[in-house]
């Protein structure tokens, strides 16, 4: 951030020079593998496009969208995905915040323990989903076993009950992602000016006052960024749920992204799935622009 001042007087940067040589290859590749598919998907959403061509492929105007709005399963899956975000992210934020405050103290091995907390963030999403599936198996799953010690028995298995499965999928995400919140908030807390805290302590502020009237307000920017990042990320969630429950039982965990996959690759309705994809893209871009506007400047990063 501090180098933006010494950059302005550079002769190198002012000349336009052969920038095309540097930019063009990346722009072409991104155009082919990213921008073109987005546009192609948008066009496809106005077509009837069965995966195996049975002669009915063709332009049908906005019929996919009309059908979509009448499709209860579409609304249900959208509701599940947004519910997922609304439940999981605040809990991740709260756990991350308090653990960040805990780690802001000086104690043995703190650096090493902090690093260990990051492992779940980078674990393969499918491995996370499969591990939770194993732990939730009836009889021999570790979590089922531990719960049974407290008298909670699930003879049918936790994942065969719709609301329990939905809860489990959310807990899986909280497990994986609260350390992400923790890491960002920890970085925010350690960069807060020390003298404010010291002044508050001299004034006799206790833990509660310091946390809620000083730390929290000063972290507002960091918290907004963290929530935006996590929201964009949670809209992408697919693999972990796909391998953990496959959207089931019934459609109990059929998140929006899983429903897109089902319509496209199980039912072969590629046009219909594209219409849903367009809606997902619009929602994601809404948050993406929020994030970019808020804190991504190419020159001051």
């Amino acid at each position, binding site marked *: 951030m501090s180098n933006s001042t010494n950059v302005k007087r550079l002769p190198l940067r002012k000349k336009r020079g052969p920038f095309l040589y540097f930019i063009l290859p990346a722009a072409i590749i991104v155009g082919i593998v990213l921008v073109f598919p987005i546009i192609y998907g948008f066009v496809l959403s106005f077509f009837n496009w069965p995966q195996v061509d049975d002669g009915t492929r063709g332009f049908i105007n906005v019929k996919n969208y009309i059908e979509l709005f009448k499709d209860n399963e579409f609304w249900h899956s959208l509701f599940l995905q947004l519910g997922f975000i609304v439940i999981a992210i605040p809990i991740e934020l709260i756990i991350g915040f308090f653990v960040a405050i805990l780690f802001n103290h000086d104690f043995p091995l703190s650096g090493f323990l*902090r690093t260990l907390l990051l492992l779940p963030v980078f674990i393969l999403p499918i491995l996370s989903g499969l591990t939770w599936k194993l732990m939730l198996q009836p009889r021999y799953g570790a979590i089922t076993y531990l719960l049974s010690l407290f008298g909670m028995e699930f003879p049918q298995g936790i994942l065969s009950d719709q609301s329990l499965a939905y809860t489990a999928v959310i807990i899986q995400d909280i497990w994986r992602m609260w350390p992400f919140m923790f890491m960002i908030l920890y970085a925010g807390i350690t960069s807060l000016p020390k003298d404010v805290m010291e002044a508050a302590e001299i004034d006799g502020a206790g833990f509660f006052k310091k946390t809620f009237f000083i730390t929290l307000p000063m972290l507002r920017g960091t918290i907004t960024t963290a929530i935006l990042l996590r929201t964009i990320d949670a809209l992408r969630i697919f693999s972990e749920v796909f391998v953990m429950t496959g959207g089931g039982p019934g459609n109990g965990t059929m998140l929006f992204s899983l429903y*897109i996959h089902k319509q496209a690759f199980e039912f072969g309705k590629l046009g219909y799935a594209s219409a849903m994809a367009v809606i997902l893209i619009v929602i994601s871009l809404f948050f993406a622009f929020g994030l970019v506007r808020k804190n991504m400047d190419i020159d001051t990063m």
Partner: protein
Amino acid sequence: MKMKNRKKIIKWIIFISALIIVLVELFPIWIIISNGFKRDLDIRNSNPFDFQFNLRSYELVFQKSDFVPSIINSLIIGLSSTIISLIFGSMASYGIARFRFRGRKGLSYSFLVSRMVPQIALSVPIFILFDRLSLTDTHIALILAYTSFNLPYIIWLLLPFFNSVSPSFEEAAMVDGCNKRQVFWRIFLPLTAPGLVVAAIFGFIMAWNEYIYALILTGNATKTAPIAVNGFMGQYAPKWGQLAASGTIILIPIIIFTLTLQKYIIKGLTAGGVKG
């Protein structure tokens, strides 16, 4: 004296709470690793905390499954896509950092924003595209698909690294008669080697972890490691021991990466906006 004792006690309470949090958090990872050393049968027929060390699952994973070829596929695809993204990404990042041109901001932001589009939303057009080109079940399809998220990500990850390099070296080299391309390849890139290594590792890990494109684009010839691991779920009875053993193996690069690169991790997580 009393005050000092109190502080010491608080320190120990904090340490023990932190330790408990970490142990609880790592429990599922311990489950994967420990189950890899059990047999499928034992897992299903005993208490989950019984433990008898056994290498049978590892033997089966290496001898009687498609796991080893899938690791090779994952390496080929991950490395190729990372190298392509690194070459063209570092060029683009340099272009954005060092040149002023019309549409500079618009172009950089569209790199960033388009990367935030969920992969599942792109899966249909990407599938049709590669299907038409008869490229499904080839390495090329997955390399290109993975480049679509790695390239914009690497551009954004490198930008702050590149901005922080003083241009005086480049200016000196230009005075000595190098042109701008030579300056970039011979002077600038070697200077930023640490940043490039970090970007490459992040890119490789994202490709290594990817599942959606692999699910729709691979067949038997190009199965990647995550697909093979999920394959142990089987049609009827899950082979949990082999799944855990293969899961542990594909976790090794992740563990090494997290433990060695932790000081870059925040930058890496927030740069491209999202992780893979």
